[in-house]
């Protein structure tokens, strides 16, 4: 059964994520050097990029789970999808917020209507749409299926965000992390990857614990829930 397994995993993910956050910030703020052109401001990157990447990645995973739920009628994957949506939305929000904060010193404004920024905003709206659609349907199975369809349709947006810097030449930075080699300094890269891993672990931990609540809520009429030690308390 998934429920107890998830219960056991959550603390591990949570603790390792906390450790990695600490390490990542140490690397990012103390070890990594000041950037030549951007000064100290560039250090936003250690939160901005992981948040942006996770917001897109989580969306894809969410759409994948939702699709599984829709096609094979597996309830667990639908629950996973609805557990991921709020976390994804928050990462999108963080990406937007930190991006805006970064934009002020770099570009002189909080916000420009550039393709990447816009498509990231659309991503946030898609998350919100998913959440509100799910919330406004009472029947949970119907809600799962309807919002799954929306998630799948919306996943068209993710490649647009990702490639927007290539397709339109805009203000926003192009990819610096490439599969072949990189232009970034090695310590910066370490810090970035640590933060990315930390965010990822955090997301897993939160999503798992949220999905546990959702399972309980949905299955409250079944016998195994009644027999759970924490319920009997």
């Amino acid at each position, binding site marked *: 059964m998934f429920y107890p397994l998830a219960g056991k995993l959550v603390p591990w993910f949570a603790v390792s994520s906390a450790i990695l956050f600490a390490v990542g910030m140490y690397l990012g703020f103390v070890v990594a050097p000041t950037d030549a052109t951007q000064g100290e*401001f560039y250090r936003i990157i250690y*939160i901005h990029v992981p948040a942006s990447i996770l917001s897109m990645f989580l969306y894809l995973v969410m759409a994948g789970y939702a699709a599984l739920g829709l096609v094979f009628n597996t309830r667990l994957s639908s629950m996973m999808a609805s557990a991921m949506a*709020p976390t994804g939305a928050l990462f999108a929000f963080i990406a937007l917020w930190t991006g805006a904060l970064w934009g002020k010193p770099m570009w002189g404004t909080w916000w420009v209507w550039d393709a990447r920024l816009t498509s990231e905003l659309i991503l946030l709206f898609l998350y919100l749409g998913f959440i509100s659609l799910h919330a406004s349907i009472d029947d949970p199975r119907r809600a799962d299926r309807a919002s799954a369809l929306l998630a799948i349709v919306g996943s068209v947006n993710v490649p647009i965000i990702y490639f927007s810097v290539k397709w339109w030449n805009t203000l926003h930075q192009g990819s610096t992390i490439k599969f072949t080699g990189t232009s970034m300094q090695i310590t910066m890269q370490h810090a970035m990857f640590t933060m990315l891993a930390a965010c990822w672990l955090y997301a897993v931990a*939160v999503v798992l614990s949220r999905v546990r609540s959702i399972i309980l*809520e949905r299955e409250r009429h079944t016998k195994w*829930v009644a027999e759970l030690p924490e319920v009997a308390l």
Partner: protein
Amino acid sequence: MDLWMRANPLTYVWIGSYAVAFVVFAVEIALVVHKRKATLQEVRQLMDVEESE
């Protein structure tokens, strides 16, 4: 604001983005914990109702 930003770039970065991010994380964790409590409560209530019927 602009002046202050130029003078204290590190503080700006810190307060501006990391603090916000961690506040968001904290809020999310609080919500998740609250939801777990609320759900457990609800399930228990349901049990009581079923027992009393």
